[in-house]
């Protein structure tokens, strides 16, 4: 049975923790709004980029000589995985969910005897993956210093990928991030960016007969555009990720605040009971002492 003093200390400590989680929740809520806005503002760019590439790839007739970034190297031996995570913890299952998704992909690659290379973006991902996959991690990038997500950072990652591709260091590249659905739900995503996955291809098949004039020719535009597209995809993923991170943190901190409240209630009841017990005990002692006189 803890003493009254112990209980009092615990109650104060839980209360101060609750204050912290409450503050974090509110900060996350404010940041979430901004992150969501940013994600929305960034959407037109990536959508337009996608459209242009779609139109371009439709008009390419000579698939054999098409840029390798679009059609792939023809092999699937070396997989490069970009794992995008947060730089901070205390955001519920946010990082763990991405890692879980990535790990199952890694296991598949390894069991198929293919070569695996990992680039982690964000320090939490690196921390979690280095224990098990240290030998596969080729690069570890973190943008802790930059306050906001900016395109410049995404471009840096994009350039690293392009450079590696040009050196034939990988055949397939996939990125892992959390897609922001709403504050409570974030869906871990796996997206292949090299070669470009044309899954949404026939969404607007009516556009097929759109004859564009290209200046210079298609190939040149494509080879100029595809590297940019990679940076854009990374940027999009980073934006989604940051919105998800804040959302996830908000939910996690909300839960933590509530749990702390419950704990305080329980401890307070216990404290009051033991105080009452002590009083009753003293009363009994006094009364029985008086009676025996």
């Amino acid at each position, binding site marked *: 049975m803890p003493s009254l003093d112990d209980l009092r200390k615990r109650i104060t400590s839980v209360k101060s923790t609750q204050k912290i989680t409450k503050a974090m929740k509110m900060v996350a809520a404010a940041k979430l709004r901004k992150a969501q806005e*940013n994600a929305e*503002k*960034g959407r*037109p*760019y*990536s959508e*337009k*980029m996608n*459209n*242009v590439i779609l*139109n*371009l790839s439709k008009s390419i007739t000579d698939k054999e000589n098409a840029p390798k970034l679009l059609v792939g190297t023809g092999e699937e031996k070396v997989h490069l995985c970009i794992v995008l995570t947060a730089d901070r913890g205390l955001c519920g299952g946010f990082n763990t969910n991405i890692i879980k998704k990535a790990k199952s992909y890694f296991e598949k690659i390894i069991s198929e005897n293919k070569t695996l290379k990992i680039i982690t973006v964000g320090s939490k991902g690196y921390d979690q993956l280095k224990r098990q996959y240290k030998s596969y991690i080729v690069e570890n990038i973190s943008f802790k210093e930059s306050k906001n997500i*900016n*395109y410049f950072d*995404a*471009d840096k990652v994009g350039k690293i990928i392009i450079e590696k591709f040009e050196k034939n260091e990988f055949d397939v590249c996939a990125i892992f991030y959390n897609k922001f659905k709403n504050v409570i739900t974030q869906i871990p995503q796996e997206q292949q960016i090299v070669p470009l996955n044309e899954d949404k291809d026939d969404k607007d098949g009516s556009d097929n007969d*759109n*004859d*564009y*004039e*290209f*200046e*210079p020719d298609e190939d040149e*535009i494509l080879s*100029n*555009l595809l590297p*940019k597209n990679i940076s*854009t995809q990374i*940027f999009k993923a980073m934006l989604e990720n940051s919105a998800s991170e804040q959302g996830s943190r908000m939910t996690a901190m909300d839960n933590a605040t509530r749990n702390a409240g419950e704990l305080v209630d329980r401890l307070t009841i216990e404290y009051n009971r033991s105080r009452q017990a002590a009083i009753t005990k003293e009363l009994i002692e006094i009364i029985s002492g008086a009676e025996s006189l």
Partner: protein
Amino acid sequence: MSNHFNIDIVNPEQSFLSKDNVFEVVIPAVEGEIGILKDHIPIISFLKPGIIRVFSESEEQSFYVEDGIVEFKDNTLSVLTSSIFDLKDADKNFVSESISSAEAELSKDNIDDQKRFLLNHKVEVLKSISIN
């Protein structure tokens, strides 16, 4: 019939400019400047460093761009660029910094002709901005 069309300039972070009452846009495409009027045929091209001029009834706007992609289709001109600023709020320091960094790049030996051409061009455009 009006001879107006739409223009959308977007950069990765946000939509930069969106107007629906322009009648001519001059863009610095990689193979020379292109003037675009209403009902231009669909075109896709990419940009070299230069100045985009947007003409609407009431005003004329100029923007400096470093690179990007343009698409014209259904009387909508989309410009995707990662670096753009309005000439009116051009930052002198930024311009001179860009000039010196481009010149530093030029003095390196290991650049190919195309890049050299683009950089030369960039310096030229930026200098003309800083004079004005």
